[in-house]
């Protein structure tokens, strides 16, 4: 179990994958604070939602999720990317943020969250 119960926002457009991430987070003792599969709803959640951390898919039905990342950066909320593109799919200004290469294991997610938590 995690040291601290994190409230996590999931931004992922593939619902099966989203459900899987949800289950992983629950297994790890965290809480799902919200789920968005499109840019617009994700942006309002990012602006107004109450959560400790966000997991961002890079490509949301053809639109990049970087505007969401920008909001989170401005709010000072930590986040990480999960993408099939790998680091090359991340634009320059967000290259310093952690990236999970899809598909990832529950353990990879756990380590990434810990790194953010204690990094």
């Amino acid at each position, binding site marked *: 179990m995690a040291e601290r119960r994190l409230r996590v926002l999931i931004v992922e457009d*593939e619902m099966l994958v989203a459900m899987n991430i949800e289950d992983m987070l629950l297994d790890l003792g965290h809480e799902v604070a919200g789920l968005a599969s499109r840019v617009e709803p994700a942006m309002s959640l990012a602006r107004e939602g109450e959560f400790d951390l966000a997991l961002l898919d890079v490509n949301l039905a053809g639109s990049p999720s970087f505007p969401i990342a920008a909001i989170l950066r401005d709010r000072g909320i930590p986040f990480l990317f999960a993408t099939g593109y790998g680091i090359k799919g991340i634009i320059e200004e967000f290259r310093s943020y952690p990236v999970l290469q899809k598909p990832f294991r529950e353990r990879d997610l756990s380590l990434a969250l810990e790194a953010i938590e204690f990094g």
Partner: protein
Amino acid sequence: MEQWPAALRLALNIAEHSAFPTAIYWGPELRLLYNDAWAPIPAERHPWALGRPAAEVWSDIWEVVGPEFRKVIETGEGMSAFEQMLPMVRDGVPHETYWNYSFTPIVDETGKVAGIFNQGNEVTQAVTNERRLSFQVALSERLRSISSPEQVKMEAASMLGAHLSIDRAGYGEIDPAGQQVIVRRDWTRGEHMPSLAGESRIMDAFGPAVIDTLRAGETLVIEDYREDARVTTPEHYATWEGINTRSLIVVPLLRVGKLRALFYLHAAEPRRWAPWEIALARDVADSTWAAVERAEVELRLRASEDHYRHAVELNPQVSWTSLPDGQLNRVSRRWLDWTGTPGTGESWAEGLHPDDRQRTFEAWGHCIATGDPYDIVHRVKMRDGSYRWARSRAYPRRDEKGEIVLWYGATEDIHEQKVAEEHQRLLINELNHRVKNTLATVQAIAFQTLKGNISLTEARSRFEARLLALSNAHNLLTEQNWEGAPLHRVVADSIAPLAGERTRIDMEGAAIWLAPRAALALALALHELSTNAIKYGALSNDGGRVSISWRTEGDTLRFEWKERDGPPVEAPVGRGFGSRLIERGLAADLGGTATLHFEPDGLCCVIEASLEAIQAREAELG
């Protein structure tokens, strides 16, 4: 001598002391007396000529001078002639000679012309030199305006042929093996002399000794081949007869020690060639050959320029050259067509994309400094403001000291190629992304299938079935080039595994196009519904039925899966993967709602989705 008339004595006195060639013809027979300066004039006739009658001494030229003597005697008036031609016989051979001379009457006491006082000198050399010179001037004037090598040869041959009153003149080329002489065109004086144009002959057929003279670079002069020691056999005679020639001058033209061409002057009858004629033939051959070579060079140059123009101007590339300091000094017109700028000097930069200038300058600067070949890909700013990708390359040309003389460059439009490469890169990225996302989906299916209390055998069979459903949906989309799929195909493919129960399933609905994401989500949901129906629902007994129907209501798709006459329905206690997938996953993927109603007569799944969402084209599949 004392009896000689005073006039004669006076004349003799003058002649004796004169340094100029002087002769006196005296008496009715015009007997000849002359001083030392005059002695060479009669050549071998001296001293025999002394005291002899003029008509006897000058029998060879009497036709000219006889009437002149007579006229002076009859009229008592002196005469003079300038550059008068006298066909004088020397060494038994008539020569064309030229003279300036005067005849002055010597009048005796009775007032009668008793003798003729003659002074004169030979001007043959001066006259022939002058003629040779003026012919050459006229010839070169004529040749100057002619640009075709063949025309040059023809003009020279006809001018000299006419000038020397010969029968045929022309140029023959020697084949590379040095064995044959080939004539393209020649000049002939008239019908009696056949042209040799278009003919070729074995050179040795004229007599090997004859040809050896030419190969040695010496002018061949034959006055009559029948009298010439170099032409001996009947075979050789046949060759000479074949060209209807008794006499000729042939000037060989050698290049790098090799016989390349001949200039020939032919006469049908034996002919004694004057030294000035031979000299003139040599002059004309040489100067014409120079003109021919110049014309050939010009012809090649024109062809080369034409080639260059085609190569440079019609080439799809821009060709350019640069001075060793890096300044472009020549840029083909195509650059102007592309960019609207000339490209020379500083203007080259104007045709580049601003973002590429620095990089381009640095690379070029490096090459200028080191002499390394230049090769760079950059964008060109086109006239209309658009940008196209181009590749510029250049190589230096060096002189014998190794110094760079000039850079030769070419700029090639590689836009299509570059765009295709870029597209391919995107496709590969996209493919990678899709594969990774599909693996994530497969991972999710595996994870969800293995969850909970389930036997390994059961898990395996469910996992395989779901994977197959996903794979079938991919097949359908691949068939449609991943642009989407018709709804009825998605439904039909999804229930295909239920083939045995096909008669118990109704399917009805309008033609609707689904985007890939919606098609995949619906296919997976239908797989869960079908599996459930076979195991627990309407298809698990003998009489149950399933009806699948859909329609549009405004901008909404309404889809219904309804089971009837199956075993009694009980709402499950918890939600399994299938339920979650439909109620959460499908709803989200379709941008609508999906609800499972566990109605007493059978399960009913109702899906409502916005048409816009399920038909939306995406740049990529997320």
